[in-house]
């Protein structure tokens, strides 16, 4: 197969960047999208060009490292699929393919298609943890959990933190990512001690990073490689509203009768 690729090339964060057209020939239909880029990089290196920088790691759809907006869609045209699990047979022969990095002010371009997603790490650091005791190993199933709730928390926990939700959102919002992390921890009994401060801290950090706000387009859910439901965004909104409007700040103050 043969492809014409319009790829975003950018030297570094200061460079303005531009699209450069590259062509690849003789690609097997069973080549993955990233392998196709590897082939292209091989060719570029041999002809004295600069290889294209892009992120990848496990290449089996679980690490969340690969990114790429392919023809305007995060992780390409196949639903519930990461870029590394996308194959060239999903494109017609001779197709022209546009490849762009995640576009978000909070994800600065490092080089070409690789962006810095440490904003997500800072959101996690702000509140994405639970308190555990440091004593002997607890028995399994020590803490009773409603299996339905546990399954729901596990649905949220399938988030691989790739950032496709931000890339897909017309507003560049990180609501689905933050909601998945908040919901995952706040649904389970182990997450209760920090429940209300967690959601406030994580949402606060999300805003500080400069991510946009949610307008309920549903693009994030549709382009999420793990198909995480926007139900979790509703859940996070409910948690935040409860934390800021309902829950008292002062838990132990005096009460007067008159």
């Amino acid at each position, binding site marked *: 197969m043969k492809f014409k690729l*319009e790829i975003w090339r950018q030297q570094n964060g200061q460079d303005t*960047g531009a*699209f450069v057209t590259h062509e690849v020939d003789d690609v097997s239909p069973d080549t993955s999208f990233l392998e196709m880029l590897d082939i292209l990089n091989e060719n570029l290196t041999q002809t004295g060009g600069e290889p294209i920088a892009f992120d990848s790691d496990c290449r089996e759809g679980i690490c969340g490292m690969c990114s790429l*907006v392919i*023809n*305007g*869609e995060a992780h390409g045209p196949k*639903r519930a699929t990461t870029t590394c699990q996308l194959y060239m047979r999903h494109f017609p022969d001779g197709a022209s393919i*546009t490849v*762009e990095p995640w*576009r*978000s*002010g*909070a994800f600065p371009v490092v080089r070409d298609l690789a962006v810095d997603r440490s904003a997500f790490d800072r959101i996690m650091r702000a509140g994405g943890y639970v308190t555990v005791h440091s004593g002997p190993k607890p028995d399994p199933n020590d803490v009773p959990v409603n299996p339905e709730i546990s399954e729901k928390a596990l649905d949220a926990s399938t988030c691989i933190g790739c950032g496709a939700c931000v890339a*897909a959102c*017309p*507003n*560049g*919002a990180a609501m689905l990512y933050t909601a998945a992390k908040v919901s995952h921890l706040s649904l389970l009994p182990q997450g209760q001690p920090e429940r209300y401060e967690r959601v406030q801290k994580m*949402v*606060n950090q999300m*805003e500080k990073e*400069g*991510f*946009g*706000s*949610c*307008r*309920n*387009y*549903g*693009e994030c*859910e*549709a*382009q999420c490689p793990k198909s995480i*439901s*926007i*139900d979790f*965004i*509703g*859940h*996070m*909104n*409910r*948690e*935040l*509203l409860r934390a*800021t*409007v309902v829950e008292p*700040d002062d838990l132990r103050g005096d009460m007067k009768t008159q």
Partner: protein
Amino acid sequence: MSRIVKFYGSIIGKKAVVAVTGLMLLGFLILHSIGNLKGFLPPNSAGEPDIDVYAHFLTVMGEPLLPDMVALWAIRIILLVALTLHVVTVSKLAAHNRRARPVAYRNHKHVAASLPARWMFVTGGIILTFLIIHLLQFTTGTIDPTPIVYGCVYSNLYYAFQKWWILLFYIGALSMVGLHVFHGAWSAFQTLGIDNPDRNRKLRGFALGAAAFLVIGFLSLPTLMYFDVMKHPNAYGESCVVSDGRAE
């Protein structure tokens, strides 16, 4: 106070303000539309059109507890505050969102977002412009392409909607309201964390129903007046006889 600052300071809090004020405005629109449908009811024993009787009721609402116009003005002020908060907050969020993606995509596909969802800001802007013109036309009477006589709602409507371009303008504006409500009436519940997979179909249905009700409810009377299906106001007795030209 610090709670309100903290709440309004967060984008989710701002969204909640937009959602609540939006639902308040939706509630008003539904009541307004029901009020307009009174144009279809038969006149009272004195021959006054039902919608005129209802309009008079609005001015004396709350009596004998409240003096005339007090309840009406209280509602007007609440709605004005809600509208202002809705518009100001949405504008702040839109400015925030523009900063979130400084470099645009060359090619960005929408695979889930509906057209009404993507055009909320535009339909909202058009509705705001329409609202100002609508209030100047029917509430203050500042713009009067057709005679506007205080208290004569039926004949005011009748003469206004004899003109094809006024009818067309309202059809256009109400389509915008329909699109805005189709997304907004569901989106508000999602923003407030009330939607979930159990309720999603019902809330989506509610948004569609509310949008359809508003468009049909508001446009039915004017359209039927234009096509002379509704009675001429002169058929309603002497109290509101207005000439086709100017008020006498």
